[in-house]
């Protein structure tokens, strides 16, 4: 790696844990470790710490502390929302509506439900990744029990019209879940105003620890457990509480919220600079919307004639950490389902690069990336038979 530069531009995959967050967690490993279900005074501190974390979460999304349930991460929260609502409400109907661009935690949970008696409608999206409200309305039947639509997409950063969706669902008395794993800590969220019934988050996307998340469940909603067992989390999510993790999540969400607007503005500017710079590379397209409808830290482009993994490897050699499609799917060889859903042909979808910015990203980082990327693309195109063909025959 040249001059040991390391530029992390994969904040959407995971963030580091902030030192202030870690510091607040440490005592709960070695000193304040009492099981919060116990009666002795040693566990009073851990109970309080969990209560505080719950309040911090509630404040940020504008719900009651009693509506906050800690989980083992974002995927668990998503699975719980879908399976828990489905199994507990199957007497009311067996139909679920979601979108084609959800995270796999939602899509694969839906496939599981389809194998077990449920029917799922996957709403299409437009070329920017947005669903159509008309499509949603048309998809609703009298068997629909749940709508699950992500707040913001992890690959192309598209933010959905959550409040409009919430209003439709509330009116039709259908539960509305939103996977807000990419949005919490980065976008202003108000579950009351937006009429959200269930919402998933994961601490490691906003500078908290990995392995801890939240499912917000509006009061009075009928939901089965995903993890049955002891009485933790008011009987809804069994398992000895991950106290340090929960404390970390609480601290992290508070910090993120304090700084939300400023950081949003700062990142949006860097993002737009990066996008504009990358679009100077010929035969390059932006995936996802621009402006306020896009996550402040998300950049996603496709370079034609080349393939994503090879871009990543060359960038890595220059000290740049990036991803192509979502990190979770990079074990698979299919192009991203999100890029296909916005209408890209396979060969173009394969050439995607996602750069996601975060709190340590500076303007110099952006400049450096803009210096490196064009030469990397150039180099790979020179090796690519598609590029050859194109130069010879032109675009068909």
């Amino acid at each position: 790696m040249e001059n040991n530069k390391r530029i992390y531009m994969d904040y959407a995959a995971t963030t580091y844990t902030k030192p202030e967050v870690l510091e607040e967690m440490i005592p709960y490993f070695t000193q304040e470790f009492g099981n919060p279900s116990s009666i002795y005074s040693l566990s009073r501190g851990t109970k309080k710490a969990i209560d505080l974390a719950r309040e911090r979460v509630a404040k940020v999304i504008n719900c009651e502390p009693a509506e906050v349930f800690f989980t083992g991460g974002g995927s668990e929260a998503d699975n719980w929302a879908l399976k828990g609502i489905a199994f507990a409400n199957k007497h009311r109907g067996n139909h679920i509506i979601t979108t084609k661009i959800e995270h796999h935690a939602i899509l694969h949970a839906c496939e599981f439900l389809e194998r077990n008696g449920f029917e799922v409608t996957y709403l299409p999206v437009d070329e920017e990744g947005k669903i159509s409200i008309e499509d949603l309305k048309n998809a609703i039947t009298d068997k629909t029990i749940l709508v699950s639509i992500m707040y913001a997409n992890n690959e192309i950063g598209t933010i959905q019209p959550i409040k409009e969706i919430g209003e439709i669902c509330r009116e039709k008395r259908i539960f509305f879940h939103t996977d807000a794993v990419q949005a919490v800590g980065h976008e202003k969220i108000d579950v009351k105003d937006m009429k959200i019934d269930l919402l998933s988050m994961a601490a490691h996307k906003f500078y908290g620890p990995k392995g801890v998340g939240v499912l917000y469940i509006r009061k009075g909603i009928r939901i089965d457990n995903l993890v049955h067992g002891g009485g933790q989390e008011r009987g809804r999510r069994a398992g000895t509480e991950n106290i340090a993790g929960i404390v970390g999540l609480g601290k992290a969400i508070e910090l993120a919220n304090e700084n939300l607007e400023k950081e949003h503005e700062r990142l949006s500017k860097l993002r737009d600079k990066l996008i504009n710079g990358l679009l100077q590379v010929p035969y390059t397209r932006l995936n996802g919307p621009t402006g306020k409808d896009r996550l402040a830290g998300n950049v996603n482009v496709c370079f034609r004639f080349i393939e994503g993994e090879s871009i990543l490897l060359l960038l890595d050699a220059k000290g740049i950490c990036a991803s192509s499609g979502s990190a979770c799917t990079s074990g698979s060889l299919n192009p991203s389902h999100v890029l296909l859903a916005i209408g890209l042909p396979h060969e173009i979808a394969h050439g995607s690069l996602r750069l996601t910015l975060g709190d340590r990203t500076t303007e110099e980082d952006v400049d450096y990336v803009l210096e490196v990327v064009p030469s990397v693309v150039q180099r790979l195109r020179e090796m690519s038979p598609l590029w050859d063909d194109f130069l010879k025959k032109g675009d068909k």
Partner: protein
Amino acid sequence: MIYSEKVMDHFTNPRNVGEIQDANGVGEVGNPKCGDIMKIYLKVEDNIIKDVKFKTFGCGSAIASSSMATELIKGKTVEEAWELTNKAVAEALDGLPPVKMHCSVLAEQAIHKAINDYRKGEGLELWDYEEKDAHEHEHGEE
């Protein structure tokens, strides 16, 4: 669950524990199967509760409720003692956790039983009271 300081005080230093040998009103409620029995002894003179004692098998809040309830009725008239509600006991203890509210119901019922036992002994008409179900147990699960 976290108990208030008042609960802990009445639990660790319970007032009025014991029996009254010449009690003229005794009430026992609860069931060992459920993990709680409360027994209240009254010594009534001139319609005044001159002395009251309790014995309780139960959790911290059952013992604290017994202690507080006996304090609250000591020196009161029988009519006043009859009016004591479980809510008043819980409030005097600075609150009880929701799962433990029934422990205070036990105290109210034990006093009612003891007073009616006294009235029976005096040849007086028994007073009616609504049997609250002390065992609407709230569970952590479900």
